[in-house]
């Protein structure tokens, strides 16, 4: 277990700046998720911690020790790769055993720990198979077992669930969460899936173009996004972002007219989450025609259009209406909404 400090780190590939200078501290025992779209520098950041990429500038400290010049093998980390990175010519047992073998753990101890770990991830009966004979989920668990068979200072996980089907992903997510609770090892987890980030993380670092744009708890990232990018990235379905202008204390867009506390200005983006909107009757601030209905099981997603404005609301599962029927939406009592500058993406309210 250890604290990880990235101090003014920077990564350049030739003249291309992949990760601009920034700092980040991951607390001892914390589960930190690096979240962002592909190519945002999250994997590069993780690989720098692992020692698989050199850093161009700055310092990386693990448990207070500067590790810039240490090769990966001496950093005492374990990593789970997106494509598992298993050793195809070895059996499951040999795969899991390999890190112990390299550390010269004696044979009896090795056998015991491999069996314990395999049982923990429910691979106990598959130890003599080769990776090619396993399903995706089983391979994933081999990769996980190989990481947890010894107790490293840090776990690094690079989109470990992205190759699994939706159902398995949910199961494995819970297993990861439980495992972290059980082992308490500092974990850095890279993903582009905001749902994974929200459910797993103690803190989420949302990244864009190499930069961390917001570092906070999942709750605050969701309820208090730092800018337009974070607001649009977090949440499923994502936040409604409507282009318009503020005039005389009201936000005006096609089909919308809402009171806001902001001085007059053009080029404003109004954001409100679908779960903060409700279907209403009569004179509501958001009016249009019904565009689509999507039943998700526990609710119905209602999409309404008025000219260029498109707004999605989460309605009751029983809601039914013909397409193109007039549709009225209103913010729920106590609903939060957000105002952003369209050009810079900066928050304008609060």
């Amino acid at each position, binding site marked *: 277990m250890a604290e990880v400090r990235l101090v003014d780190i920077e990564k350049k590939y030739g003249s291309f700046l992949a990760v601009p200078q920034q700092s980040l501290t991951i607390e001892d025992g914390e589960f930190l998720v690096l979240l962002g779209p592909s190519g945002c520098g999250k994997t590069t950041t993780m690989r720098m911690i692992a020692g698989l990429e050199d850093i161009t500038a700055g310092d990386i400290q693990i448990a207070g020790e500067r590790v810039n010049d240490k090769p990966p093998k001496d950093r005492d980390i374990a990593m789970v790769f997106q494509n598992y*990175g298993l050793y195809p010519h070895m059996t499951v047992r040999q795969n899991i055993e390999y890190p112990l073998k390299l550390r010269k753990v004696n044979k009896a101890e090795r056998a015991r720990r491999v069996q314990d770990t395999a049982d923990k991830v429910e691979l106990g009966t598959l130890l003599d198979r080769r990776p090619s004979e396993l399903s995706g989920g089983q391979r994933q668990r081999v990769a996980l077992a190989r990481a947890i068979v010894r107790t490293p200072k840090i776990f690094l996980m690079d989109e470990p669930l992205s190759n699994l089907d939706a159902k398995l992903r949910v199961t494995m997510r819970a297993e990861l969460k439980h495992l972290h609770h059980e082992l308490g090892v500092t974990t850095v987890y890279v993903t582009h899936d905001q749902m994974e980030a929200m459910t797993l993380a103690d803190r989420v670092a949302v990244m864009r173009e190499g930069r961390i744009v917001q570092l906070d708890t999942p709750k605050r990232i969701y309820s208090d996004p730092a800018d337009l990018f974070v607001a649009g990235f977090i949440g499923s379905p994502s936040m409604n972002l409507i282009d318009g202008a503020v005039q005389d204390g009201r936000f005006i867009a096609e089909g919308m007219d809402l009171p806001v506390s902001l001085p007059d200005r053009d080029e404003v983006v109004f954001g409100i989450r679908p779960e903060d909107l409700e279907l209403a009757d009569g004179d509501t601030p958001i009016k249009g025609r019904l565009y689509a209905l999507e039943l998700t099981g526990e609710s119905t997603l209602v999409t309404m259009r008025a000219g260029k404005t498109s707004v999605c609301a989460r309605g009751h599962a029983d809601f039914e209406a013909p397409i193109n029927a007039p549709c009225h939406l209103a913010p729920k009592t106590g609903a939060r909404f957000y105002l952003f500058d369209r050009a810079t993406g900066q928050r304008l309210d609060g």
Partner: protein
Amino acid sequence: MNKYIAYWGERALLVLISVVVLFPIGWMFLTAFKKPRDAYSLSLNFEPTVQNFVTVFSDPWNLGSMVLNSVIVAGATVAIAVPCASLAAYSFSRFRVRGRKFLFFLILSTQFIPAVVILLPFFLMFRSLGLLDTRVALIIVNLAIVTPFVIWMIKGFIDAIPTDSEEAAMIDGASRLRVIKDIVLPMAAPGILTSSIFCFILTWNEFMFALILSRRDAVTLPVGLVSFRTERGDLWELMSAAGVMITVPIFIMALLIQKHFTRGMTAGAVK
């Protein structure tokens, strides 16, 4: 009807090509078992004998020493070239060093030079080193010929191995050399085996350098064949028997690794 013609046409063509390719080899095998008086006849009706094989291994032909030379030269070339080439191929495949592409091109470009052009420099070099007519000279020359080729082939195989497993091993605690030993070599083994066989065949069949650089002690099998052209004329039955001795090991190897062989050819071709 058209389909019928295409079907039989295709087969006829394949048979024709096979006959053209296999005829000389078949003829050689038959002649190897013929008595001198039957050697020139095309008849299949002859009394087979193994006397030719006994003759080529005894004085004055002494094929045994040539077999030994060929085995030592080809074996040593493979034993040196393949490990060196594997390490070079790994480096070319994995390390992003400045000038890497140019260096790789440079190594490959040695293959573009016609052998006759470098024949004389090699001859003069070995003469001044006192290495003419030695196996060492032949091994050095063959290494120069096959190593670039083997580097290129093995690099193709290593390129196809995903780096994930290597990185995983490094994080698990392995040094770079340990990664090569534990992960890369086992995964590239079929490719390395194929390359070794190619390397062996190239060296085994090498004729021109062996002809010029050897005289008596270091003569290899292909060069030995020439000695059957005597003042009494060409001794076809003995030449054929020696030819069989040269081709049989290659045939056996090709059969054993047929599957890898074709895969190796295509892998090397596209990478």
